């Protein structure tokens, strides 16, 4: 009896195993889906050259119109950076930028509210210096259906709910506009009133800023180099009441980098002796500096052109990101002509925005001398082209 039971049992087990094996085989076959290779969308389509306006000669700026967008140019930005502190001495840096990027110089004629040739992007970053933390986020939207765009009356530039604007009923001086900026990401947010303390600075030749020696490879570029900034910062559930200084850059153009140029190191420095320095250097593939220039702004708002030979800029320290890309993290910036000697260093090592376009936008602290006097200061450094 036992033998029968055992042999029957063994038979059942054996056959079950065989069948399961066969089923597994069939199952496997049914999962044999061909492997997929992603064909990049961009490979499938052609780029278009376009017929955009170019920055060829100085223009007469008209405000508030020029605070709003210039859709016939390829690119444009509203660039706020600032260094702030709260009453307990916690230091913060922020960057809030709205970019406009024309997808084509042609207009569209579709029966559609979502149709546009303008793309808006915003980058928003916050450096919590005291805690050594860096937060960043981005947003992009089509410039249609009022999802993103720029208007003059009221002055408002926005990407969805991230906005740069004046009060709707603002009737003050548009040469010295009182901006409100507001952005909220998942775990950090800002809401500031930003008011110029010094008058507008037009870079280059009355606002026409050349980016290389090629004509037309230039932008219209003006700044407010020192703006009183007050408002709120929120990180996670914590709120901070802050104040400090911001810097706003406005630039629009159809220029691109010249061949050979791979990126730039760009500085906006606010010294505690009421001077500001804007200086940028374009870099070659081999990391040598290719082209540069800047503006020195004096306490009374007057400003002076800085040519590259007036400045001796050297990288004194590097920081390497997780992917092994090396960024400069400290510099010495000297000028005999302007009589300054500055040590510039990033406040937190990692202030890299790992977005579709990767770059470094970092709050920096400054120590040094100007005309024999010791000084301190804060500013921002923008480093691009280091991850190519």
């Amino acid at each position, binding site marked *: 009896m036992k033998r029968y039971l055992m*042999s029957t049992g063994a038979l059942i087990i054996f056959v079950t195993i065989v069948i399961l094996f066969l*089923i597994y085989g069939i199952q496997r076959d049914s999962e044999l889906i061909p492997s997929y290779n992603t064909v990049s*969308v961009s490979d499938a*389509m052609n780029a278009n050259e376009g017929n955009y306006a170019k920055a060829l000669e100085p223009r007469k700026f008209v405000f508030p119109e020029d605070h709003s967008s210039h859709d016939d140019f390829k690119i444009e930005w509203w660039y706020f950076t600032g260094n702030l502190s709260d009453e307990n001495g916690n230091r913060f840096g922020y960057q809030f930028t709205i970019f406009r990027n024309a997808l084509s110089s042609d207009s569209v004629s*579709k*029966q559609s509210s*979502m149709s546009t040739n303008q793309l808006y992007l915003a980058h928003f970053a916050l450096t919590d210096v005291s805690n050594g933390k860096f937060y960043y986020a981005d947003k992009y*939207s089509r410039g249609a259906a009022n999802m993103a765009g720029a208007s003059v009356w009221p002055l408002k530039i926005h990407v969805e709910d991230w906005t740069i604007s004046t009060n709707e009923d603002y009737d003050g001086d548009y040469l010295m506009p009182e901006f409100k900026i507001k952005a909220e990401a998942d775990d950090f947010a800002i809401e500031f009133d930003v008011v110029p303390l010094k008058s507008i600075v037009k870079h280059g030749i009355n606002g026409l800023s050349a980016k290389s020696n090629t004509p037309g490879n230039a932008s219209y570029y003006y700044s407010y180099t020192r703006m009183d900034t007050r408002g709120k910062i929120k990180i996670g559930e914590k709120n901070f009441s802050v104040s400090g200084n911001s810097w706003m850059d406005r630039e629009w153009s159809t220029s691109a980098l010249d061949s050979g140029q791979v990126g730039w190191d760009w500085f906006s420095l606010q010294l505690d002796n009421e001077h500001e320095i804007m200086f940028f250097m374009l870099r070659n593939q081999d990391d040598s500096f290719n082209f540069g220039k800047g503006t020195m702004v004096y306490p009374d708002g007057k400003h002076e052109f800085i040519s590259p030979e007036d400045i001796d800029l050297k990288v004194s320290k590097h920081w390497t990101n997780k992917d092994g890309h090396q960024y400069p993290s400290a510099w010495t910036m000297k000028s005999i002509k302007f009589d300054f000697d500055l040590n510039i260093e990033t406040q937190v090592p990692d202030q890299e925005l790992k977005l579709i376009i990767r770059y470094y936008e970092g709050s920096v602290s400054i120590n040094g001398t100007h005309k024999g006097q010791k000084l301190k200061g804060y500013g921002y450094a923008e480093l691009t082209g280091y991850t190519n």
Partner: protein
Amino acid sequence: MGFTVNLSSLRYYLKNPMQLILSIVGVALGVGVVVSIDLANESAYEAFKLSMRSVSGNATHYISGGPNGFSDSVYRQLKVDMGFRKAAPVVEKFIRIKDGKFGVVTLMGIDPFAEQGFRNYVNADDFNFGGALGDFIMSENAVIIPKDLANELNKSIGDTIIAESDGKIFTMSIAGIIEPDENSIDLKNFVFTDISTAQHLLGMGDMISRIDLMLPEEYEKQIIYELKQKLPDYANINPSAARSKAGSGMTESFRINLAAMSLLALIVGIFLIYNTMTFAVVRRRRYIGLLRSLGVTGNEIYFLVLREAFIIGLIGTFLGIVIGIQLGYFMTNLVTKVINDMYFVLQVQTVEVSSLSLLKGMVLGLAATVIAALKPAHEAGKVPAGMALVRSSQEKKLKSQISKFNIFGIIIFLSALPILIVETDSIYLTYLGVVPVILGFSLLIPQFIIVIVAIIKPVVSKLFGTIGSMAARSIVTQLSRTTIAVAALCVAVSAAIGIGTMVKSFRNTVDDWLHFRLKADIYASVPTNVSRFNDGTFSRDIAARILELDEVRAMNLYREYQLNDGGRIYHLLAAQVQSFEHEQFKTEGGISMDELWDKFQNENSIIMSESFAFKNKVEVGDTLSLVTDKGRVTFNIDGLYYDYSSDIGLLMLGMNTYLKHFDDEMLSGIAVFAKEGVNIDSLERKIKIAAGDDIEFLIRSNKRLIDGSIEIFDRTFIITNVLQLLAISVAFIGILSALMALQLERAREFGVLRSIGMTPAQLRKLVILQTGIMGFIAAIAALPLGNILAYILVTVVNKRSFGWTVNFEFIPEYMLQGFVVSILASVLAGIYPAIKLSQSSPANSLREE
């Protein structure tokens, strides 16, 4: 010793290969049918889930609203005013590809800038920002298609595709081809484009179809609450299609019914195994007695028989799984067709050969075999050592028990009544109620045989002489064996009659209803994707132009719209009709037709279809709250009407009421009444001209619409007919096997007859006559049982599954068919034993003793 016994088992089955093969084939077919239906159901379900996943991506919810979508201002409000981040707008519509035979695909207009995190098919990151993205967004007709679709259409980048939606034709140009890098999505039936291009091509302007949302689970309820407070009334927040059971719920009844019917084939298979094993035991009674006297225990014999059954079951099941997988492709095709006609657009790319389906088939097959073999094994175990139980004692036992059988049979038969009468939602339970009907009726078969034989014996002996009366009498004398064969045949034939009668009754009911309901001369609409839903739209201008034609006396206007209320689908039918008289309505609470007509015109009155009442458990007089473009509105259900077009149920409301609550001026269909004496063909042509060239307008005369509807009906029942056919095949094999076994067992008896002077020809006549008479008895018995089954299917199963009232009818053609099949099967089953037995020498037959 075990080996010797096993060998003897093997030898026995090899000596009777016909028995073995028929048993295995019977089990294989039974299991095959069950497995194939399970595979088809699973494949359809998986395909549905996959396509929902592909559509919703990672969305957890979506906002919908309005029959034609809603303004993009809701999206702006969400993202710009409220700062809500995880939202992506979608313009979506089924379109038909006109070149090639490919058919229906989903045109999906998305915003590449908002897609991130939702779907990774067409994302802004994939483009180089300079050119390609701009081209894609700005082009009037650039689309990106999946590689599978490109291959199917034989198109590449730069080619164009012509498509149609709501009767409008447009051209798309292929700007890119993508291949999904995830296996869990199915993109073959999608055409992607920028949301602005989709709005443009579909003529939607500033309207969007939905906004996908990703809500964090922990704050889900709170966020939905807040959104509902702030967004306009028509914005409706639903769980995403992938999460919602709405779609799969629609087809549930259909799937369960298929599964239940597939089990029928297996049940017939069980009869077969029972018969084979009984026969195998009886034939070896002497041998088993010998084994017992050699010291083999009754238990050992019991397990020996069970093991034999198990091996037959195993081989049969294994073959059944192989058959099932093959048949699965065919069944999946049929199931998909029904779903596309009845429920929603579904394209099944692959048959899911799931281990679970196969395992289910295996367990069912083996369990069925072993259960069927339990009684024969038990009998074998009881055979006393050294002697074979004389069968006559068994026959005596059965005859003395007939009255007991009758009583039990009636009790079991009646025990089905409470199951069938009591209200239940469970379709399985309902089908379970069919089992006692069959079982109880089977127990009455011995009595039935005695009665029928008594009646026909005089006739048979008159027609066929002594042989005839011998044949008739022997059926009664061997009642213990003939009963099983007759019962099996009767059950199989009844099943065929039952299913056939059910389908035909249903068809007749639908046909009557169509004739009753469709009174207009011409019907017109734009092409739609699901045959039973006429929800395509065209503008009222077209209807107005048609109404102006001289030949037109009057016109009914219809708008059909699937309303999604928080994941529940309601099928609305707004009608502006000439008169209520051409609709069948049932009212309750004494409301007169005139009153109903009045309410229907002006108030928030709706009339529900019978299926709706059934599916939603509502009655006339109840209220129903529905989300409309103007917010939530409570409707009064004032009537109930018969409708067989949708088992989801329809809600009919007056066009005025509809327009009051929905911002929707579009129409889905018109019914045109021609003036007296107008030539319908020429009016059709005039309507076509009035509709204009830029729209594909389907214009059908009354007759063509009815024919078309019946055609769809027939198409949805193909799978039922296939199942019926398969059940008959299993039954046929069963009968063949059972009757053959019966006759072969009687070799000795026939040997005696031969030796006392019966000629081989007479013997052949006797055998064939006997099986023929058994077939006749089974056919007679199948008439009541078949019609009882049909009646249960029509009035209970169908009503509980779909909520339709179907008029049961006797269908003579199916009864006749059952009769023919029954007698044919039995006569055929008699031929082989007749020849074999008449050839063997009587001495050999007798020597066995």
